[in-house]
């Protein structure tokens, strides 16, 4: 998407951007200076009113449900949009000539991807959101560690929100571009440059203090790496305090394995203990991410037990019953629905197709749901 202005924006569009821009700038300031939980409700209702006003697709669904800003009094009542609607509709209040970036959902090539449009302002909110929560969850002072990123660099994955996120992290680290050790093959598949990866792992100065590593990647990139290490009988002992951050989902890009197995293998092959493996949950339709926070009592819990994912205070999650659409009780399973204030220029309330177990104000991820086909002799599974 070319940047810059094509044609003269209409007067009302100018006004729209002023209102949303002002919200975006306030939110960014608030995120950077320490978001106050108390401000969430008012900001959510304010953003709903703005999105209702400026996002035609969203407004139509609100009107169809009879839910307008005049009658909504609580953020949980704000109409949500199914994540799949990002595939069919332009769920944005950015006019085409203001869109400078678009993030696509990953998936099979036959499916239309979700499209989440951004401009400089919306990216600025996205970046403020991701950095703040990343820093709080990566468990390391950023300045002190060596970064290794198992995805292609941004130049080879322009529509990936994950790669954009990693790029922002890289810039924050002040790390060189070559920390991206993945590449995009000619058919669009993400692969790893194993030589470059191994070189990164081995790059430990023999000084008394070894800088810990922070290795970022998707679950499938770790599987590719672990398979390679196993085939070549290689093991690493990354420096003490090193961290691994994996973001879930295999999307048929590698064999999939249970999270506990993946983490055990990462520990075995990279020498990073389980407690230093961090899980991230994010999607192109959102502008904030959740991280798995292990229970305070993690030492007394079984190793396989998962912790709960937590979004930052400017994004809240509900786990809703697919049957009734109502929030489930704590400990019950349902579909994950997120209200992300950082989705300023798209829609804040997004209904995912992911299952989670409600854990307080967070959730335990059950699976990126491959929605089951009904079981019958019409469409069957054995």
């Amino acid at each position, binding site marked *: 998407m070319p940047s810059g202005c094509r044609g003269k924006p209409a007067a009302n569009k100018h006004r729209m951007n002023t209102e949303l821009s002002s919200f975006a700038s306030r939110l960014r300031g608030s995120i950077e200076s320490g978001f106050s939980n108390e401000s969430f409700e008012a900001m959510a209702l304010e953003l709903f009113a703005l999105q209702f006003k400026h996002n035609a697709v969203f407004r*139509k669904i609100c009107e169809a449900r009879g839910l307008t800003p005049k009658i909504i009094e609580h953020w949980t009542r704000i109409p949500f949009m*199914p994540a799949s609607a990002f595939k*069919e509709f332009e769920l944005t209040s950015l006019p085409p000539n203001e869109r400078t970036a678009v993030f696509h959902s990953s998936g099979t090539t036959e499916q239309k991807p979700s499209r989440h449009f951004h401009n400089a302002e919306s990216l600025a909110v996205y970046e403020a959101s991701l950095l703040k929560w990343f820093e709080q969850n990566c468990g390391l002072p950023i300045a002190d560690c060596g970064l290794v990123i198992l995805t292609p660099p941004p130049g080879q994955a322009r529509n990936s929100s994950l790669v954009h996120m990693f790029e922002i992290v890289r810039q924050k680290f002040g790390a060189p571009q070559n920390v991206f050790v993945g590449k995009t093959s000619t058919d669009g598949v993400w692969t790893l440059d194993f030589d470059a990866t191994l070189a990164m792992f081995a790059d430990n100065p023999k000084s008394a203090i070894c800088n810990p590593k922070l290795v970022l990647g998707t679950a499938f990139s770790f599987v590719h790496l672990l398979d390679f290490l196993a085939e070549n009988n290689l093991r690493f002992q990354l420096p003490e305090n090193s961290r691994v951050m994996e973001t879930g989902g295999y999307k048929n890009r590698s064999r999939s394995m249970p999270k506990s197995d993946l983490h055990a293998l990462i520990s075995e092959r990279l020498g990073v203990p389980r407690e230093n493996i961090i899980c991230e949950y994010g999607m192109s339709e959102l502008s904030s991410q959740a991280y798995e926070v292990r229970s305070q009592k993690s030492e007394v819990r079984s190793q396989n037990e998962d912790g709960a994912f937590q979004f930052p205070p400017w994004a809240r999650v509900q786990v809703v019953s697919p*049957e009734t*659409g109502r929030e489930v009780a704590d400990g019950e399973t349902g579909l994950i629905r997120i209200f992300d204030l950082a989705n300023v220029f798209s829609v804040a309330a997004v209904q995912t*197709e992911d299952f989670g177990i409600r854990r307080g104000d967070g959730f335990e991820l059950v699976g990126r749901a491959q*929605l*089951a086909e009904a079981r019958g002799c*019409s*469409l069957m599974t054995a």
Partner: protein
Amino acid sequence: MNLPNYFLADLPPEATLSPAMIAEACQTLKRNREHYLQNRKTESLIRVLSDVADGWLEAENPFRKLALECGTAQTGFSRETLARGLDNFFKQLTRENFHALLVQEFGDAKRFDSLVATAAEQKQNRAAIVSAPELQIHICAGSIPNPALTSIVFGLLTRSAQFVKCASGASFLPRLFAHSVYEADGKLGACLEIAEWRGGNAALESALFAEADCVTATGSDETLDKIRQQLALKTKFLGYGHRVSFGFVAGEVLYGSRAKKIVAAAAGDVVAWNQLGCLSPHVIYIQLGGEILPEHFAQLLAEELEKREQTEPRGELPPEHAAAIASRRGIYEVRAAHSPESTRHWCSKDSTAWTVVYEADPRFQLSCLNRFIYVKGVADLKTALESADSVRGKISTVGIAAPEEKINEIASQLARWGATRVCPLGQMQNPPLTWRHDGRPVLGDLVTWTDLEM
């Protein structure tokens, strides 16, 4: 449940099946068949089967009671859905229907008993007898019981010993039926085995397939292909792949009280077995030009489904199936809000119990089932068939509502196009015993003929 421990499926859940157990069960089945079944007269088999079926139709029958009392927990179907489905199935198992089936397949109901000749054969001085495989193995997928029950009935009628392998969690009704046969006639019951495990267990399946003369299977093309690859060349294989069905309503019949009946019939097809069978409609095509427009038909159908929900509830769904419905509803809701002239939708309140989606786009859509139905308008049958081109060759049943004088013409058109069954709307899930599954012979594929030329 108080059933004797007789079949492998009766073992407690913690019991583990071994290949040796499977092989031994097959050996026992073959021995029992030799002693008890091979030489049974057809009439005697028909008597037992029709008596068992009559029993299942009686309210106080212990197997029926058990099926209805425990069935919801075991199968997910509501008591009412189970009752209607089982009634419709067992009503078909009458002496007359068995005779009609044997005559249809073999020209003479005594073809298994001795060398017999039809009038045409007599003229040619010929006679013939048929025999069936020693051991049939049925690999049953899915949660609706009809395919497994039908296989058992046909297997007994043809005098084969049978091993019925159900999908995990789906053995309840076949097991009850087998027990009812065993109770009626222990010797016949001794020629049946019912087991369940999750498909793809190579050790158990290779032990099973090694014993088989004939394997019947329902499942995806991929599943069928995998099974076929494991079979010896001499083993007969009858695979029934994925099929889908749809309805077609001619414009001429869409008026007044007749339209109301048609709506009720369509709702019956959506509700039966919660739409999970391959004979259940995914789409109902409504021909334009009638008194009732397609979107109006959709609305009436929604009202009817709501009524049915009160008398024959769908029952609870596992969360992933409810999520599939919720997810589809989500997207149709957005589309409907965006362009109400081309998409509308009606949903049960506070549940996923039923959903009707009207789309102006006539392209065939696969439903996510569990009472989720598409209604689409078309100018004529030709347009409907063009719109369903993506599933051509995969269609089982077309349920129709049309003026009587046009039914032959419509059926011929559908036959040329590749549909294998045309029936009245409302009867899609109630095929007769003589129904040729996927257009193939009912029993003809199972048997071997011996011709005598005089």
